[in-house]
């Protein structure tokens, strides 16, 4: 799950592929191995802590790879290659600016408190540091969010299997969920972590040959930069962007962004990029999201816990080659004559055309070409939904189709059909699949597809294991049934795993049938996430921060997100789910810029209010209570027998240095 990209329930619309027996064999072997890992771990699952927190016993290289892999879900893979085609190399900022500094900060400064406090979850740390109100707010929003995230991912998986392989949607959803249920129920968090590591190697070894073949096909890196320079100057040729940019817009990470929001296809200015993404969103996600922090908390000792994010940072820096470069290759292939490739278009089922044309014609009677107002778009959207069904996703393109309705008077059916296809936007989510289909013969195809399915399933497992821990320790034990035996909580951990999977399945159906409602839910979670890091920053580094300050600051920060979103909009969007439901105060050049600035405002309000209210309220926790929870009240960690070059601060500085060099190379 990524919290950075605009809310979007992926609509995969890919051409069917035929799998050979060898591909199915690879898929089945994968399923067999993950289930076998679950059964092999079963005998170690004795207490509730073994099941829910791995009994703090896992070596650092495993937690490190799982830490990174927990974020490398399938929607992330699909989304990053999509962005690679849409925005080029600047997409790497989600991996460099948007992750590495935060991971180093977590390792050097925050992990000692998370791990040293013996908290079993992030909400539990909040309870120790502040009070029950902050924990309650965080644990409830987090629990709901994980179930939704897992449901969205499973919906995408079942939809993909249905469209790609022709499998039955319900059957795919239930079988994949059952596999996840079996191995999580047997091996608990350890199972989830182990399969995340397996998934990481699957992604690397499954995608590397595809990237290699793609690069070879277009003629190497120099051909990529040469073609992307042309793409930058004529992005409209592939429907990538309506504007025109400088030659380096797709191939430089920084100079187009320094040039201003109008100079880069992301539509993002430098402040929003560095402060909004690089500080607020990135630190908020990597340092406070229990889904990833849980992996580090499962490490076998303090050194391993602190090394977890550092180990994760190494593959994180290199991964753009596997997840972003394919998208750039797709844009290059689309630009090259004779490669016979174009970025996948959202496909309209043949059967929908007559109804679609009918709607456009009936609508054309009511308007003339000059007046495509938001009301017209709204009414068209409604009619399209009635005529083609909500799940087809066609109504989503109402803004693009409205101008066609205006000219439908003069065009006949045969001319309207290609015009409709042209108006419908690129389906960037199909980019990675289109490359797999292009380059993979059977055998390799099985490996690559299994890697993709593995990341869907381990995404569900990751969410479910975070959910069952927060439920059992932070909600059930805290508020519903305190002071029970450990056997009872171990039983509850397993029971809630089953419930969590069933809730995910329910959410998957919800996402399938009410795509818009799901987008709204994701939006609301974004509101909750944006200010969170301010609470942690003040809580961990300023002993004067009070529970009341933290709680009210967090609420105000969340409210600020909602109000900010209600008053702003991005260019080309209509008021509604995209913002401006309270009125329009400002228009951003892109949804991404809106998102980054929203986070910046929410963080600032939360920070200032938490600090202000803390000064105005009495402390409820003494210095002694806060020992091990706040930086200035905790004795410095002294690790004996550790050479200086293995200290987290030194390793972290080296990693930051490498990250800076990467940024300079691709400036």
């Amino acid at each position, binding site marked *: 799950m990524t919290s950075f990209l605009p809310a979007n329930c992926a609509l995969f619309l890919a051409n069917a592929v035929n799998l050979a027996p*060898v591909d199915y*064999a*690879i898929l089945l*072997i*994968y399923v067999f*191995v993950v289930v*076998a*890992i679950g059964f*092999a*771990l079963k005998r*170690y699952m004795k207490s509730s802590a073994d099941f829910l927190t*791995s*009994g703090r*016993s*896992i*070596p650092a*290289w*495993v937690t490190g790879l799982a830490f990174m892999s927990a974020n490398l879900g399938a929607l992330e893979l699909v989304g990053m290659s999509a962005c690679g085609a849409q925005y080029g190399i600047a997409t790497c900022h989600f991996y460099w600016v948007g992750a590495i500094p935060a991971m180093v900060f977590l390792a050097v400064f925050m992990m000692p408190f998370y791990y040293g406090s013996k908290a079993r979850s992030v909400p539990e740390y909040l309870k120790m540091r502040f009070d029950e109100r902050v924990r309650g707010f965080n644990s409830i929003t987090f629990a709901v969010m994980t179930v939704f995230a897992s449901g969205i991912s499973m919906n995408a998986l079942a939809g993909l299997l249905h469209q790609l392989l022709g499998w039955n949607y319900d059957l795919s959803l239930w079988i994949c969920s059952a596999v996840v249920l079996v191995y999580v129920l047997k091996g608990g968090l*350890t199972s989830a972590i*182990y399969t995340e*590591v*397996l998934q990481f*190697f699957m992604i690397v*070894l499954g995608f590397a*040959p595809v990237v290699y*073949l793609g690069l*070879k*096909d277009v003629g190497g890196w120099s051909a990529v930069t040469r073609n992307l320079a042309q793409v930058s100057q004529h992005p409209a040729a592939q429907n990538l962007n309506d504007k025109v940019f400088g030659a380096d817009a797709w191939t430089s990470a920084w100079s187009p962004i320094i040039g201003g929001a109008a100079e880069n296809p992301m539509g993002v200015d430098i402040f929003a990029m560095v402060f909004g993404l690089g500080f607020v969103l990135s630190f908020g996600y990597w340092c406070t999201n229990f889904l990833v922090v849980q992996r580090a908390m499962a490490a*076998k000792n303090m050194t391993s816990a602190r090394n977890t994010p550092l180990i994760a940072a190494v593959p994180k820096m290199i991964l753009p080659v596997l997840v972003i470069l394919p998208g750039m290759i797709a844009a290059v292939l689309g630009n090259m004559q004779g490669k016979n490739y174009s970025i996948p278009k959202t496909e309209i089922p043949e059967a929908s055309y007559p109804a679609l044309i009918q709607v456009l014609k009936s609508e054309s009677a009511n308007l003339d070409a000059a007046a495509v107002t938001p009301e017209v778009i709204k009414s068209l959207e409604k009619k399209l939904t009635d005529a083609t069904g909500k799940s087809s996703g066609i109504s989503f393109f109402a803004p693009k189709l409205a101008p066609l309705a205006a000219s439908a008077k003069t065009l006949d059916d045969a001319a309207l059909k290609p015009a409709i296809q042209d108006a419908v936007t690129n389906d960037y989510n199909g980019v990675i699949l289109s490359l797999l289909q*292009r*380059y*993979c*013969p*059977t*055998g*390799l195809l099985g*490996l690559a597809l299994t890697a993709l399915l593995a990341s869907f399933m381990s995404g569900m497992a990751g969410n479910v294991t975070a959910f069952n821990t927060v439920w059992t320790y932070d909600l059930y034990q805290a508020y519903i049934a305190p002071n029970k035996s450990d056997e009872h909580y171990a039983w509850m951990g397993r029971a809630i795993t089953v419930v969590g999977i069933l809730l995910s399945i329910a959410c998957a159906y919800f996402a399938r049938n009410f795509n818009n409602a799901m987008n709204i839910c994701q939006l609301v979670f974004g509101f909750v996430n944006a200010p969170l890091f301010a609470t942690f920053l003040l809580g961990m580094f300023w002993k004067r921060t009070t529970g009341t300050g933290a709680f009210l600051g967090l609420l105000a920060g969340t409210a600020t997100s909602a109000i900010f979103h209600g008053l702003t909009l991005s260019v080309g969007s209509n008021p509604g789910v995209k913002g401006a439901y309270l009125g329009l105060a400002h228009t951003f050049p892109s949804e991404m810029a809106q998102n980054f600035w929203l986070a910046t405002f929410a963080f600032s309000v939360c920070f200032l209010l938490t600090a202000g209210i803390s000064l105005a309220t009495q402390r409820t926790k003494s210095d002694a209570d806060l020992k091990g929870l706040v930086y200035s009240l905790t004795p410095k960690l002294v690790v004996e027998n550790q050479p200086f070059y293995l200290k987290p601060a030194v390793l972290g500085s080296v990693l930051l240095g490498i990250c800076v060099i990467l940024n300079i190379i691709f400036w």
Partner: protein
Amino acid sequence: MGLDLRKPIGIFFLVLGVILVGHGFLTRGAEMYAKSLGININLIWGAVLIVFGLLMLIPALLSKGGGE
């Protein structure tokens, strides 16, 4: 945890590698390799997977530390 993760990962990729090499050998010269630019990618990549599997498996079998 007592299970050394290097073992299942090593075995898994070893098996996949053998399958890909076998499949690549049986289908050499097949039309479908036009997709992979004329390269028998199954044969080559299968060999890579075998090497990776062994790199995971051999140290795990030699050590008694459980992947530490």
